[in-house]
């Protein structure tokens, strides 16, 4: 018997407890299935990002000295020249470039038919505009060295420098955001504020939506000059807690989880279906001896500084804290992927040699070495090193200081005894030594004249081989003088879920995130 809708509604509606229970269960199941389906949407790659995403990172013109904004720049934008797999100077929007013999002129030729996300062509005018608009890290230095920018036609750009500067390309392509190109016409039309909220770039993915600190959504740009990205949609969810990121990866809510450390990394490694992918980044960790120039200090004696080097169990700490993925290079200042890197001898863990050196220095019974200052974010490394030092008789107390306070105290040269450093700024061997080794550097408590004397020579040397020789010699001297006791080059550990075929982790040397984005692939269902 069929009933009319009127009859159906005329019947009194009675809801029983069992109906409520059944409804709740059905709603729960539907919701649970829906949340699973959301994570596994075909063509979508979901990230659990460890750090709050800021709107300023969407705009290359605001790039700070942090590496983190490049996490977004590689997706949304493109540069003339940028670090790419296998090279620090990969061809992006420029198909070729040349430097004049006198080092005063750099010519770039743009690729034909490259487009911004709004369909406008990328031209030399955009390159000039992007450079002049840049207000991020090192903009004063970079722009101050450029005399003029010429754009003879839409595909050619010429930078004229005031004086030869061998590091021009290092700064223009890697260290700053000045070489990442934004659309002049679009920005002039919509205004700076609108552009910052909804950026238009020339990268493999275009902007869809952004909730600052919460979530960013991007969509594949089918007309990207290199190739249409295989991943169709990227969702970056900010999940500040490390344990929650791992849980989201395990439950399949996200495909890639950034920064999973310590014991959680061990758990990730053992989890079925998940992969731990590590990238050695440009952060070099070392113990600095700020009192080595003070004759009354024990650290003035090079034998004691060398003893520290022999006392540190580099590989043991590496295994315990970063699953053995950090690079134990022996270089305390310059990371191994930097231009002009010099490979020092690998450090040796030998407590007996350490004790012997201490005895030769008249410290056979050990000594009270005061404090070991470190950034509290990396106090776990400090704890391990302090234990190693105590084992050979160097009695030092760990003094972890919250990151901002630590960096302030370090930069203002307030610390004595021992400092654990971990510089991560981009650049090359010269820029790294400028701030950490050479007289006048931001974190330099003292210096050696023979090293100082070499620095200005390399800065004006246009012959690459000669410059490299000078910079190698400087690093050699840093090693010989035990200016620092190296710990390692930190590995950034990440989790990758079962849907990801190729994550792109580690393809660009020193870059901690997944790039190039256009090379990331998902497994077919």
């Amino acid at each position: 018997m069929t009933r009319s809708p009127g009859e159906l509604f005329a019947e009194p509606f009675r809801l029983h407890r069992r109906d409520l229970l059944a409804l709740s269960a059905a709603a729960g199941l539907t919701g649970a299935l829906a949340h699973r389906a959301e994570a596994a949407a075909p063509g979508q790659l979901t990230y659990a990002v460890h750090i709050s995403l800021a709107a300023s990172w969407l705009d290359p013109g605001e790039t700070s000295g942090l590496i983190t904004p490049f996490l977004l720049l590689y997706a949304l934008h493109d540069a003339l020249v940028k670090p790419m797999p296998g090279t620090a100077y990969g061809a992006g929007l420029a198909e070729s470039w040349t430097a004049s013999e006198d080092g005063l002129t750099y010519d770039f030729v743009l690729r034909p038919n490259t487009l911004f996300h709004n369909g406008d062509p990328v031209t030399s005018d955009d390159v000039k505009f992007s450079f002049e608009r840049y207000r991020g890290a090192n903009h004063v230095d970079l722009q101050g060295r450029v005399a003029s920018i010429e754009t003879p036609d839409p595909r050619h750009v010429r930078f004229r420098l005031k004086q030869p500067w061998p590091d021009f390309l290092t700064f223009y392509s890697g260290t700053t955001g000045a070489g990442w190109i934004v659309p002049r016409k679009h920005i002039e039309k919509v205004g700076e504020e609108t552009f910052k909220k909804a950026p238009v770039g020339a990268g493999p993915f275009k902007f869809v939506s952004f909730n600052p600190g919460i979530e960013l959504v991007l969509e594949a740009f089918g007309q990207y000059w290199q190739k249409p990205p295989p991943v169709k949609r990227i969702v970056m969810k900010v999940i500040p807690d490390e344990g929650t990121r791992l849980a989201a990866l395990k439950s399949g809510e996200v495909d890639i989880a950034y920064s999973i450390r310590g014991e959680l990394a061990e758990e990730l490694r053992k989890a079925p279906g998940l992969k731990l992918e590590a990238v050695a980044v440009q952060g070099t960790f070392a113990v600095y001896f700020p009192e080595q120039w003070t004759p009354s200090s024990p650290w003035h004696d090079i034998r004691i500084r060398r003893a520290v080097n022999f006392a540190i169990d580099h590989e043991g700490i590496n295994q315990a804290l970063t699953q053995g993925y950090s690079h134990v290079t022996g270089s305390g200042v310059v990371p191994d992927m930097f231009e002009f890197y010099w490979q020092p001898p690998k450090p040796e863990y030998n407590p007996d040699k350490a004790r012997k050196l201490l005895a030769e220095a008249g410290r056979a019974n050990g000594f009270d070495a005061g404090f070991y200052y470190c950034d509290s974010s990396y106090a776990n490394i400090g704890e391990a090193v302090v234990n190693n030092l105590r084992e050979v008789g160097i009695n030092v107390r760990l003094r972890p200081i919250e990151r901002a306070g630590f960096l302030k105290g370090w930069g203002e040269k307030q610390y004595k005894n021992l400092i654990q450093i971990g510089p991560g700024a981009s650049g090359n061997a010269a820029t790294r030594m400028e701030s950490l080794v050479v007289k006048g550097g931001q974190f330099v408590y003292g210096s050696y004249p023979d090293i100082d004397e070499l620095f200005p020579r390399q800065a004006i040397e246009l012959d690459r081989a000669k410059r490299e020789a000078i910079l190698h010699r400087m690093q050699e001297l840093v090693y010989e003088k035990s200016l620092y006791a190296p710990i390692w080059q930190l590995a950034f550990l990440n989790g990758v879920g079962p849907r990801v075929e190729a994550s792109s982790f580690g393809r660009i040397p020193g870059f901690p995130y997944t790039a190039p984005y256009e090379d990331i692939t998902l497994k077919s269902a």
Partner: protein
Amino acid sequence: MRQFVLKRFCYSLLSLFLLSVTIFFFVRVTGDPATLLTEPGASEADIAAIHQKFGLDRPLVVQYVLFMTSLFRGDLGQSFYYQTPVMDLYWSRLPHSLLLAAVAMAFSLIIGIPSGIIAAVRIGSFWDSVGKVFALLGLSLPSFFIGLLMILLFSVYLGWLPSSGSGTPLHVIMPAFALGWYFAAAHMRLTRSSMLEVLGSEYIKLARLKGLPQRLVIAKHAFKNALIPVLTLAGINLVLMINVAVIVETVFAWPGIGRLLYEGISFRDFPVVQGVVILGGAMIVAVNLLVDIVYAVIDPRIRLGS
């Protein structure tokens, strides 16, 4: 009455002024935000440019005067980290915090009040012991621990609930439980003690002597009176839930005000910390002012005594 209200209002303004002074100078002794906006090794020119951009190169007093001038215009300044107005950030996060607090409060009252009543009515019984254990666990187990246990069980092993984020009703269940857990225990304890006090009063004895059934005595006579302090506390707790659910919101990546405060503190984002603290403080001061006024209306002794 008018004098009483005016006096309370002036106290409230004074409290907010002192709060603004405290938070403004306190955040500035915690470190230099420029060092967190660059990598270690950044040039001094970059650090100086950041100081200049955010006005940190000016004397502290000048910075404070500018901050207060903007505050009176309803402008909390621009976030150093996000580089967007703090007010926009706050308004974008507030609805999430209100939702979380409302659900957590509902949960805490639904659990806390009935269990408190049962514990009081059946004092010394098995249920009273269960209530005491619940209160002890609620007050002693940290919310992040509860949160992580729930994520492991309901997200990783059972796959029923999303581990983090927001957007669907399913997203709010675990953070609301984790946030409401502590408050449920607090409400349970207060309901129990309040009920015990009321149940021992003369009018309840009279009601019983008159032969009223136990259920009627509890529901009609005791419960209503015992509820007043619980609801007063719940009102204050609701404001706290909105503003200081820092740990729960961080563990569950819930996009609320607590997480905004956490981000502000992490990055030494002075305008964000100042803004969140002052607006949170204003909410608490406003609720207290309201409670004072309502009490004064109900009980003339309060306003006359003042």
